[in-house]
């Protein structure tokens, strides 16, 4: 059942031929403009141009010039040649592709497997599994990566040490390799495919599978020939968004890839920024291919979710897919495997964090027995002004960014879903594009823009707010968009018929209707500001140090126990925030969370 996101049909007012028999008399010009929401559209386009197009155009401009803005740059292909004229770009592309594809596969397999078991089978302890699965959403990636680094290290890793206790004296694990990087990233990101695929499994019409079973098809055959094809759009969308996120992530490539000499695009751009003087033009030239790859993936993803959203309206037929009934040993073995996966991917790094946070410096018990435990790192977290200041700054920036992204997204979604305004598709596309702009590149571009335009934004929290709104408005739009498509427009029409103006309709009818989706979007954006490193790493300053940057600097200083304590405290705080989000989503359905992603 198509929704109002479907392309305009011949019945829409803008396609009705003027003066045709039966057409209404032409309204005055200004009234027609108002009717088509042109002022709102123009303002939205202007905002999105500043947030999205200016940084993108600046990256292109810088890659085609030989000096930063304001320094008499002239056009040249020198930086393009420097970036792509040698073979050094090839390992970069290969590493980035291997890392992004590999971690996407790992995250997808784990997330989808868990989603299937919790949604489509009667495996025991599903609620416990749900709780554990959501943890990776709230633990900052820098902290998890540190935990994995010290778990898997070849020489001092806790896992290799534990193996020696059972007679295995040759180290099996090694933290500094591409395989480890893929594992760490995949294990950190499986909550996203879990949420997306759980929503897909939950809304799967069981009638199709029942018909297949009735006609004699076995379960595997039904799964292969019926379930999988129905789920294909969700699978494609899930794989693409995972690929884009893994391509731009900084945490694992920064903490493991740099010392392991495995550069990927995100770390390469960051390392270029560490040269003095920083060759911003070369960094921009390298970023072009980075953006291009992500843009292609995002374009395919965007098309696939737009297709899916057209049919996202909840139908009148209420159904609940049947669960696959597991019996006896099979049931308990399946439960065991599921919880073993969660033990390894979630509990193990969390336990490592708690253990690490209680040490004065990291060491295994191998030499000198069980090390003495201390709360010094927690005292450091509580007593250090830099930490409390980062928490406060992060909360301020997160809340302001979340609110701004949510409000902007609500207006965008309303224009796209409920109006026939010209340019609404472009607005939708522009609002979605920032997913494809990697955080390091966006940070690089915004720093250059606001250094060159002296309006007092550079070096303040406002450049971070602009950056977060630019980057995450796409997530907020998806959440509010899916909320709006699932609510019939007749309520707003009734309010309009009763004489309410456009703004009043939006404020009193539309906003309350999309509030749950918008709230989830708000909380998700706030959570991301506490988690993601790739964007603030390029924009941090004295007055605007975000928690992920402070964590990364503390890791760089080798104070792993302090990092772990910081991670434990942050995780507890974010778990509370996510708990609120989960309550909201439980009230209104998990689809809203997956919509936000």
């Amino acid at each position, binding site marked *: 059942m198509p929704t109002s996101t479907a392309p305009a049909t011949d019945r829409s007012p803008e396609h009705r031929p003027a003066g045709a028999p039966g057409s209404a008399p032409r309204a005055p010009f200004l009234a027609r403009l108002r009717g088509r929401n042109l002022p709102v559209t123009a303002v939205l386009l202007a905002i999105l141009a*500043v947030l999205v*197009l*200016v940084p993108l*155009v*600046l990256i292109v*401009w810088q890659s085609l010039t030989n000096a*930063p*803005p*304001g*320094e008499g740059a002239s056009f040249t292909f020198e930086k393009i040649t420097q970036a792509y004229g040698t073979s*050094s770009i090839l*390992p*970069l592309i290969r590493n980035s592709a291997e890392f992004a594809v590999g971690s996407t596969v790992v995250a997808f397999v784990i997330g989808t497997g868990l989603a299937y078991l919790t949604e489509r089978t009667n495996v025991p302890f599903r609620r416990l599994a749900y709780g554990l699965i959501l943890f990776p959403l709230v633990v900052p990636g820098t902290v998890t990566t540190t935990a994995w680094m010290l778990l898997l290290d070849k*020489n*001092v890793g806790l896992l290799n040490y534990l193996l020696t206790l059972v007679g295995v004296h040759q180290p099996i694990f090694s933290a500094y390799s591409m395989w480890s990087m893929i594992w760490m990233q995949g294990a950190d990101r499986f909550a996203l495919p879990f949420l997306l695929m759980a929503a897909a499994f939950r809304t799967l019409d069981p009638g199709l599978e029942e018909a297949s079973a009735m006609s004699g098809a076995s379960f595997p055959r039904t799964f292969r020939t019926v379930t999988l094809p129905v789920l294909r759009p969700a699978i494609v969308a899930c794989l693409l968004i995972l690929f884009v996120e893994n391509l731009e992530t900084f945490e694992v490539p920064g903490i493991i890839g*740099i*010392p392991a*000499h*495995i*550069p990927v695009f995100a770390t*390469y751009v960051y*390392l270029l*920024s*560490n*040269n*003095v*003087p*920083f060759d*911003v033009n070369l960094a921009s030239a390298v970023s072009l291919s980075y953006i291009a790859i992500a843009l292609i993936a995002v374009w395919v993803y965007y098309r696939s979710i737009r297709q899916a959203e057209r049919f996202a309206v909840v139908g009148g037929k209420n159904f609940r897919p049947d669960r696959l009934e597991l019996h006896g040993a099979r049931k308990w073995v399946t439960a065991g495997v599921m919880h073993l996966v969660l033990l390894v991917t979630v509990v193990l790094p969390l336990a490592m964090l708690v253990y690490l946070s209680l040490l*004065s*410096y*990291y*060491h*295994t018990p*191998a*030499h*000198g027995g069980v090390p003495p435990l201390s709360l010094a790192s927690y005292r450091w977290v509580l007593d*250090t*002004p*830099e930490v409390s200041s980062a928490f406060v700054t992060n909360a301020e920036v997160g809340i302001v960014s979340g609110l701004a992204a949510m409000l902007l997204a609500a207006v965008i979604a309303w224009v796209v879903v409920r109006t026939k305004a*010209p*340019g609404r598709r*472009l607005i939708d596309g*522009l609002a979605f594009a920032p997913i494809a702009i990697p955080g390091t590149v966006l940070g690089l571009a915004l*720093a250059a823009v606001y*250094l*060159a*335009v*002296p309006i007092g934004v*550079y*070096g303040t929290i406002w450049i971070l707010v602009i950056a977060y709104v630019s980057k995450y408005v796409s997530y907020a739009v998806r959440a509010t968009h899916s909320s709006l498509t699932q609510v019939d427009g007749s309520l707003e029409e009734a309010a309009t018929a009763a004489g309410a103006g456009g703004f009043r309709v939006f404020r009193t009818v539309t906003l309350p209707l999309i509030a749950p989706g918008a709230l989830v979007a708000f909380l998700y954006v706030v959570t991301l500001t506490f988690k993601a490193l790739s964007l603030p790493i390029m924009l941090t*300053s*004295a*007055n605007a140090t975000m928690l992920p940057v402070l964590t990364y*600097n503390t890791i*760089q*200083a*080798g*104070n*792993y126990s302090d990092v772990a304590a910081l991670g434990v405290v942050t995780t507890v705080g974010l778990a509370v925030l996510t708990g609120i989000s989960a309550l909201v989503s439980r009230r209104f359905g998990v689809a809203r969370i997956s919509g936000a992603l």
Partner: protein
Amino acid sequence: MRTRLFVPLAGAAAAVVLLAAGCSSGGPSNAAAAKTVNSEFAALQAMPPAQAEQKLVQEATKEGSVNWYTVTQGDDANLLAQAFEKAYPGIKVNLTRSNEPGIANTFNTETRAHHYNVDVLDDDVSYMDQFHTSGLVANIPTFGIDVPAADRGEWWVVPDIQPAIISWNTNLVPNSQAPTNYQDLLNPKWKGKLVIDVSPDSTVQTLIASWGLPKATQWLTQLMNTQDPTILQSHTQIDQLMAAGKYAVCVECFAYDVVNLKDNDHAPLNYAVVNPTPTPTSPTVIAAHAPHPYAALLLLDWLASKPGAQDMAKFGMVTQTAGVNLGSSALNQIRDSSTLFLDTPDKVGSIAAEAQNLVNTLVAAKVAGSGS
């Protein structure tokens, strides 16, 4: 419709970018701004010391804050900022902390865009030297500065030093077999067991000064290409991982960290003080365009004074200021050793560029994945 709207929008964005590209090119010249700060400082220097001190504190208090861009480790920088704020209530220290050469780079980028936010900054000597040559750094009056003459120049002060030592994990390397000089590190038995910081500039400078460029180049080439050391960013990270037993031998570890881990946390570490002893410094300077020049000078004055040095010693930092006990006999002994080679701007001169070139070619390139 999309295409019709996208083209003018992209065009407008391009126009904004081009406008931005042109609008920041009209700032004051570096030389002019440096002259202003320099002339104010010169006027202070001409006053009787007591009067100059009084005016300095008055003006600094009026300014109310100072922006310090530093590579000093996070906790130490915070503690110093707090101690200064306690000594001078009403003057807030805004810290921007990063690793080398992040601070130099941020300062360079901001200054090129005529965004003048830095009052005081410190980073590797080679960058500070470049900034001084470019007229981005002010001259410093000498009153109130208590550090030894060797630790200050016309435009820089070195409040603290970082003597570097060869260190090893005693669980992995018995003391009797440990390396005690730089040639020992080339022994094949250390292949794959060494760790080195991504910027070992000070060690390379010391070796160039001691051995000459050809021999120093040969040593670093052999170390990087034959011994295959692990390269990490941050000395303190290396010290922690050495204590954990991840690496056997550290080519350039900071003495204060190793001594602290060994003596206070009983970590299985030991060390050798090499002659000459590379002693990295981070020359601290005042920006020529400092928005708070008096507060900047007061901070620098305090960092280089005896009370400042005593606070540094309390926080575990190493200072050469006379009569300051570092609280550790081992650190006092290293600090008072005659073998220290401080990489101050006056000592390293052209060596800094040679060392940086070697490090970029043989060490940094390897990190970026394009090295051998």
